[in-house]
């Protein structure tokens, strides 16, 4: 009896190991292809039969991207845009999420549903009004014009609310008895507790805005304001696609993101783990 249970367990472990590795392979393969192809000469990328390993390694694609685009400016723009949006999202969405989760006020349900609904707007539909609006306010083609509309993010408010709702009820009671103001309770008791959730929101905001293409392209008119992902589009012509350079540009925009993610991942994975999630 005991023997068969053991065999069963071993088989189960082997099977689950194979599945895990299989999924890992499926997830990683396109990236391996991406990395290796960005190190190929143009004629080796599209070839028959397809080959993964380069016939010859080369950095020409990276050099081409580097020489064509003002990488430093683009990098700076992307960082400035993503970082400021991230900081403000973490703070504003924590505030909003907290209010929805822990404070009873009139119209709370309705307002929350309204915020939920703003998640459902395809960007294509507000593109033109947004452009005209920014023109009227006079912030078109400025960093303010890029940053202001993204100061807050409904998805993150939703996430933050889910986090705060799962915290024990008596937390703020203690503060209230001590006579602390609501703001003080939020700032000194609640905010420190949600740093993990804030890291989650931070990573999501940062990557989303880092990768966004249409939005920054729409709201900026000068080359000096372009972000890295716009750089990616610079090699995809209507009639010609320069695969090598496109892939190299994707790698260049991906690497800083990946580095940031790996640096933060420990807190990120833990971040949601702490939250417990309630809707």
């Amino acid at each position, binding site marked *: 009896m005991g023997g068969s249970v053991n065999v069963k367990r071993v088989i189960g472990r082997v099977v689950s190991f194979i599945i895990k590795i299989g999924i890992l392979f499926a997830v990683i393969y396109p990236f391996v292809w991406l990395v290796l192809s960005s190190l190929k000469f143009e004629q080796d990328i599209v070839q028959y039969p397809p080959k993964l390993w380069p016939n010859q390694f080369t950095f020409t694609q990276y050099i081409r991207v580097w020489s064509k685009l003002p990488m430093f400016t683009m990098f700076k723009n992307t960082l400035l845009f993503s970082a400021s949006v991230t900081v403000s999202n973490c703070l504003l969405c924590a505030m909003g999420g907290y209010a929805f989760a822990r404070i009873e006020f009139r119209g709370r349900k309705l307002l929350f549903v309204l915020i939920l609904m703003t998640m459902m707007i395809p960007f294509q539909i507000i593109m033109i009004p947004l452009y005209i609006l920014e023109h009227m306010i006079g912030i078109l083609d400025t960093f303010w014009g890029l940053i202001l509309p993204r100061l807050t993010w409904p998805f993150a408010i939703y996430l933050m609310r889910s986090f705060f709702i799962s915290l024990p009820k008596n937390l703020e009671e203690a503060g209230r008895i001590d006579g602390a103001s*609501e703001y003080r309770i939020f700032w000194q008791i609640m905010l420190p507790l949600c740093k993990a959730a804030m890291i989650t929101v931070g990573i999501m905001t940062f990557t989303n805005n880092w990768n966004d293409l249409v939005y920054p392209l729409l709201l900026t008119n000068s080359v000096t304001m372009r972000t890295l992902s716009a750089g990616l589009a610079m090699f995809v012509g209507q009639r010609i696609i320069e695969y090598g350079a496109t892939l190299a540009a994707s790698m260049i925009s991906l690497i800083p993101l990946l580095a940031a993610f790996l640096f933060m991942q420990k807190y990120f994975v833990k971040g949601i783990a702490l939250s417990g999630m309630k809707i």
Partner: protein
Amino acid sequence: MFKNIRSYFQRTETAAWVLLFPSLLCLTIFLFIPLIMSFGLAFFDVTIFLKQFKFVGLDNFIELLQDDRFWNALGNTVYFTIMVVPCGILFSLAVALFVQGNSLFQRFLRVSYYVPVICSMTAMGIVWAVLMDPTIGMFAFWIRQLGFENVQLLKDPNLAMPLIAAMTIWKTFGQNMIILVAGLQAIPDEYYDASMIDGANKWKQFFHITLPSLIPTLGFCVTTSTISSFMVFDQTYVMTRGGPLFRTETLAQYVYTRGFVISPFRLGYASSVAFVLFIVIAAISIAMYYFFTKKETEGL
């Protein structure tokens, strides 16, 4: 006087509004106002050049009901959502169960599985489109090695949408997985210990403890995935442009095509399509929100 203002701001209800104020201000100016402007356009006959506005009342909506491409796009969007949401979430849940532990290997897997989520859809779309080319693509090559000669992949009208759904699951399952892992880890160990004493097997444990405790988390995943599936655009835009034979044209894509691609760039009509899209998503997700909130309090 000053004291009055001070005590007014100290009130709990006021505090909520103060905390919400920056977010609400930003959303009102940059989201609600453009949205209202845009939905207003649905009642006009107007092109993207915004030159001549002609009020047409509900004409755009009436036209929409007779528009085959609209119904086709709606069908495609629903088809896509039906594939992506249940399959994607079941897959994410299965993976989450596999990698919920805290061993180094499992943590490594979690981080690796999340990598596609942080990449740009545009870049990944280009990579996948090359990999899935029926002639020179790596995937088609493998499939031919397996003995299937006629591989069309994205060029096959019946396969295009399932393949795009598969790619979407590949790109996004990490997000739900990480959230579900968090949900799983938050279930107190005592629950399991208690059921062990009762002699429950793994399956029983899963259905009686794990699943009920996961309801809120699952609700969050289902709601957000449904919303993003209904708005699917980037994947089809990069990989198929709605083809072959309009089989992958989704509602968001149709809005875009009507407004920006097909002359005479009928923004008013496109807005009416968007309006319908918005209503559909809103109805479904609010229903889901209430369903899961109810389940949460009642249990399964």
